[in-house]
């Protein structure tokens, strides 16, 4: 008889400097179950998984595998113990083929002739077929869809003999259809006696297929529940810490004049790929338009084009009735378009510079901030200090390099900069990614505040709940096109899910 627990963690604590990511966590998964680890972004789920897979080492606590206390120092150790992890950001080498990725790290046989490769390819195909994971073994990974890459990752873990399989946010990159396919695979794995542990923040998924559910919040483990004995409501309460009511959203007045009119916009993204295909929509004063969709379906390129960062090959962009001739960030800034970029440290802030310099980024050309080619140093510091107070940015000083601030404070700094410019149109791309609940709510309040004062907001987000909660109208993007549009009133998850999977809207359904 097998041991009851395939894997146990006792009193786990993990600290990064002063930040406590996991505090006194106990967790156990049974052999042959699908166990979901549920929690908000930043609840510490991924950290916990990383400790199981040997990427991080716990600051304190024990890990037991099949009842034996183990020390996992590296991913290699984890695999030797039969623990394999599928990371959220896939650990695949894009230039290698699927087969090469799968046999990577294998020690046997230094020499690899053609017959050896053929034999390995057959073995890999056999494993893939057994669990219904269709992959093309000899194609380079960079040519594969995200779903197929994930299947390669799973085959890799299985091929290397793992019987405890960890998946970190496996559905965050998948369309609903691909996600369903993944769930089928997971059930097949369970049937074969493997233990599957996955992290997610999506309640519906958890209720659909997990056997047991452990809920985490703010680095602590709250409770482990049996799926049959709980419901979505209870889980949501545990996860968020109170009834998830959502931010107060005053009903819309009638939207005003059109601020942004996009017609037939097409954007080429290099390497011959068309990222945005003939997109048309309008954002009016006093409304929030949400764009839902799985990441990588043209949203980033659309946002870049609207911020003047990316040239477009066809179509028109009109802001406040004036048509843009060509992509120009200056034109965008001067016509009152503001961008909260996808990755704030990558493209929004200058990490090694201080708060003043970062606040100046969009406005330093104005006579208020600089004169005769010289910055108005003292005045700018005063202004920066007032913004720091108004937006409650916590920092040790105005000259602290902003990469030393916490994620929430960085985002507040960025929003302070963009909101203080009093933009006519705000484009917010994943504005709450990686923020805790408090920070998320204050971002939502800011966006709703802009709407209330008659500004327009284009909200691009992967988080369907966020889009549905804030938007007056919802557009769904898939494959670079807008495949569905609906008003707030007749939006529902199932329809959006179908659109996200690439099904076209039924004509006549488009709302005002």
């Amino acid at each position, binding site marked *: 008889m097998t041991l009851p627990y395939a894997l146990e963690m006792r009193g786990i604590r993990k600290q*990064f400097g002063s930040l406590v990511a996991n505090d006194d966590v106990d967790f156990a998964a049974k052999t042959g179950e699908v166990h979901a680890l549920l929690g908000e972004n930043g609840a510490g789920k991924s950290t916990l998984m990383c400790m199981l*897979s040997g*990427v*991080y080492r716990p600051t304190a606590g024990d890990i037991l595998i099949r009842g034996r206390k183990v020390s996992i120092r*590296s*991913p*290699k150790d984890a*695999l030797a113990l039969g623990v394999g*992890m599928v*990371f959220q950001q896939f*650990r*695949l*080498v*894009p*230039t*290698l083929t699927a087969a*090469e*990725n799968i*046999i*990577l*790290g*294998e*020690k*046997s*046989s*230094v*020499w*690899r*002739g053609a017959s050896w490769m053929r034999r390995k390819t057959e073995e890999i195909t056999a494993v893939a077929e057994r669990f219904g994971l269709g992959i093309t073994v000899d194609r380079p990974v960079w040519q594969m869809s995200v779903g197929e890459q994930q299947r390669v990752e799973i085959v890799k873990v299985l091929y290397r003999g793992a019987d405890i399989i960890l998946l970190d946010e496996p559905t965050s990159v998948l369309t609903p259809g691909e996600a369903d396919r993944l769930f089928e695979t997971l059930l097949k794995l369970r049937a074969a006696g493997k233990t599957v542990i996955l992290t997610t923040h999506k309640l519906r998924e958890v209720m659909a297929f997990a056997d047991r559910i452990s809920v985490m919040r703010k680095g602590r483990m709250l409770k482990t529940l049996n799926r049959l004995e709980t419901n979505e409501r209870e889980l949501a309460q545990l996860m968020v810490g109170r009834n998830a009511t959502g931010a107060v959203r005053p009903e819309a007045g009638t939207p005003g004049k059109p601020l942004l009119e996009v017609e037939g916009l097409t954007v080429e993204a*290099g*390497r011959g790929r068309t990222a945005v295909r003939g997109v048309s929509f309008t954002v009016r004063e006093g409304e929030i338009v949400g764009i839902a969709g799985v990441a990588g379906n043209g949203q980033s390129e659309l946002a870049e084009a609207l911020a003047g960062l990316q040239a477009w090959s066809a179509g028109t962009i009109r802001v406040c009735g004036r048509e843009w001739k060509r992509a120009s960030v200056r034109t965008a800034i001067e016509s009152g378009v503001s961008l909260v970029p996808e990755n704030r440290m990558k493209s929004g802030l200058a990490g090694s510079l201080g708060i003043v310099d970062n606040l100046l980024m969009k406005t330093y050309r104005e006579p208020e901030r600089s004169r005769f080619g010289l910055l108005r140093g003292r005045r700018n510091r005063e202004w920066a200090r007032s913004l720091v107070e108004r937006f409650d940015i916590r920092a040790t000083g105005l000259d602290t390099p902003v990469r030393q601030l916490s994620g929430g404070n960085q985002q507040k700094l960025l929003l302070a900069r963009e909101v203080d410019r009093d933009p006519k149109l705000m484009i917010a791309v994943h504005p709450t990614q990686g923020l805790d609940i408090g920070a998320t709510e204050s971002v939502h309040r800011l966006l709703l505040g802009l709407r209330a004062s008659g500004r327009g907001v284009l909200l691009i987000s992967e988080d369907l709940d966020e889009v549905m909660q804030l938007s007056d109208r919802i557009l769904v993007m898939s494959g670079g096109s807008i495949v569905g549009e609906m008003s707030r009133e007749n939006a529902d998850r199932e329809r959006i899910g179908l659109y996200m999977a690439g099904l076209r809207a039924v004509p006549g359904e488009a709302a005002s």
Partner: protein
Amino acid sequence: MEMIIQIAAAAMSAGTPLLFAVLGGLLIERSGIIQLGAEGVMLMGAVAAALCCIRTGSPAAALAAALAVGATLGLLHAFLTVSLRVNQIVSGLALTLFGSGLSAFLGRSIAGQPMPGAVPKLDLPFLEPVPAAGDLFAHLDALTWLSFALVIGMHLYLYRTSWGLHLRALGDSPQTADVMGIPVAAFRYGCVIAGTMLIALGGADLLLVYAPAWIEDMTAGRGWIAVALIIFARWNPLRALLAAYFFGALDALGFRIQLIGSDIPSYFLKMIPYVVTILMLMYLGWRNRGKPSGAPESLGVPYIREQRL
């Protein structure tokens, strides 16, 4: 015909030192580390070989000395870039500046002295009757044959062995390699040391086979040209051979034109390799715009395991 064979032979002899340096450099860059110290390393390899050859009279000992110097400098670069994670560009520049200064200092006493021994030639008399091949391959020196073996060996290593697969993965995605149990730091140390030894061997080849004696700054930018050639070679050993010989031919061509007695001043002929390097890089950049260059994707980025994103 005779002219072509002569140029081909000259291209081979001028290209072989470059070939060693390009092979070494691409081995290092495949592991994700930039080695801009090639110029200094070649000079140090050459001066070490020269000193040792004059002291002992044995070319084999000279080569061993060059390899030892290469290993030491490689260890230094690996320590700075892999362990201390200093800026790889700066570390390479330091290596070049230090290497050219130190080599001039050490080689001062033997500047211009002819080498007492020569690298032995491998005579293949049965090749002599074959047209072209006979002229080119019948009396090559051992180092040139070694360079052929290295090209083939490195190709097989990269594409036919598990270690080569590890190396290719390492340069493109050290995170993945680490997860797959490949020791990132140890592998990088190994590649940087072995590659730097090859670059030093290139310097020794330049001294022992191509040029008759040590003179200060004798590489004249060949180390830097080798760095550029890695880009032409797209990090592939077989293409490295073509790239190195192409530049060897340019070198030889300038010399030939002078011999014919053209009235172009020799200074302008000597500029050809440098100017062509820039023009070729511009052409490649124009042709490959919007496409991947084939460079290892983690090139120049130090790897830190416990990195929070």
